[in-house]
C-alpha cells in the first residue's frame, strides 16, 4: 500500500449508482424476473426429463444480469452411465 494507491482508491458512490441502474432496469420489467425464472427452470427441466432421468435437486440455475445482456445458465448433473428414458418405457407408460 503506497501513497499512489491511496489516491487511486475507487470511490464507492459511482459503483452504487451503476449497480442500481442495472438492477432496476431488470426489476422494472414485468415486476421482477423471479416468476419467469421459475417458469423457465421448470419447463427446461421437463424437456430434459423426457430424455434423461434427472434429479431435480441436481439442476443448478444461475442468472447473471448485465447492462445490455443477461445470461441464464442451466447446469444439469448427469451420471456417467446415462439413465436414459427409453422410447419403449415412455410408450408403455403412455
Amino acid at each position, binding site marked *: 500500500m503506497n501513497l499512489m494507491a491511496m489516491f487511486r482508491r475507487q*470511490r*464507492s*458512490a*459511482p459503483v*452504487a*449508482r451503476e*449497480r*442500481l*441502474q442495472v*438492477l*432496476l432496469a431488470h*426489476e*422494472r420489467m414485468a*415486476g421482477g424476473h423471479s416468476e419467469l425464472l421459475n417458469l423457465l427452470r421448470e419447463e427446461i427441466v421437463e424437456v430434459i426429463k423426457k430424455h434423461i432421468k434427472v434429479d431435480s435437486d441436481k439442476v443448478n440455475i444461475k442468472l447473471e444480469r448485465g447492462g445490455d445482456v443477461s445470461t441464464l445458465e442451466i447446469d444439469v448433473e448427469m451420471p456417467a452411465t446415462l439413465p436414459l428414458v427409453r422410447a419403449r418405457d415412455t410408450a408403455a407408460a403412455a
Partner: protein
Amino acid sequence: MAKVLVVTSGKGGVGKTTSTAALGAALAQAGENVVVVDFDVGLRNLDLVMGAERRVVYDMINVIQGDARLPQALIRDKRIDNLSLLPASQTRDKDALTDEGVAKIIEQLREKFDWIICDSPAGIEKGAMMAMRYADIAIVVTNPEVSSVRDSDRIIGMLDSKTLKAERDERMEKHLLLTRYDAGRAARGEMLKTEDVLEILSIPLLGIVPESVDVLNASNVGSPITLNNPGSGAAKAYFDAARRLRGEQFEVVVPTERVGIMGRLFGRRAVA
C-alpha cells in the same frame, strides 16, 4: 379542498415517521389544518415522535370497528391547535385495517382538515398498501444508499398501480424527499449524490434533509423538529418542503457542510 398525502419508502428506518411529524407540524405552523395518521398497526410510533404517547385513548381500528367515533380518537397537539394525530392500534393485527374502514375514515378526515398525512409502515404489506390507497400525493422518503433507493423504486411502481388514483387512470403526484444526506460524503464520492438518486428514480425533488443530530434530539423529547429546533438545517429543509407542497416554487438547495475549527481538529462535521 383537502389533500391526502402518504409518506412512504418501502425500507424501514429511513425517516418516514420523523418526516411525517416534521411536515405535519411545518404545514400546521403555516396555518393549515393538519392531521397526521399512523398506519403502522402493531408498531405505532408516530404518537411517540409527536410527544402524544400518554394521551392515546382510542385508535384508528377502534373507529373502524365502531368502538369509538372519529373525533374521540383524534388527539389535538398541545403546542399547535390546528395539528391533530390519529394513532394506530398497538394491539390489533393489521387485518383489522379494512379497505372500507380506511376509505370511510379518510372521507371523514377530508371534511375536517386541509392536509391528511398518512405515515406508512415499512414493507409492502397491507398496512403500507392501505396508507397509500387513497392518497392524492406521495412523498417517497429515500436515503442515499442502495437498498433504500431500490425499495423506493419498488414503492413508486406500486404507487402507479395499486392506488385508487392509478386504478382511475389519474396521475399520482410523487415527490422525493432525500433524508440523512451528507453533502461532504457525497462530494467525496462516498455517498450517492442527489443527482444520482434523482436520475435513477426520476421523480421531482421535494427536499434534501441533512443528516443531523438535531433530528434525534427532537424525537428524544417527542417534538417535531420544526417545533423543537426551527433554526436547524433539518427543520429548514422541512419548512421548505412544506412551502413547496403548498404550491410555492423555488430551487432546492443542497445543504452544505459547515466545518468549524473544533470540527476540523476533531474530524467532526456539522451540517449547516
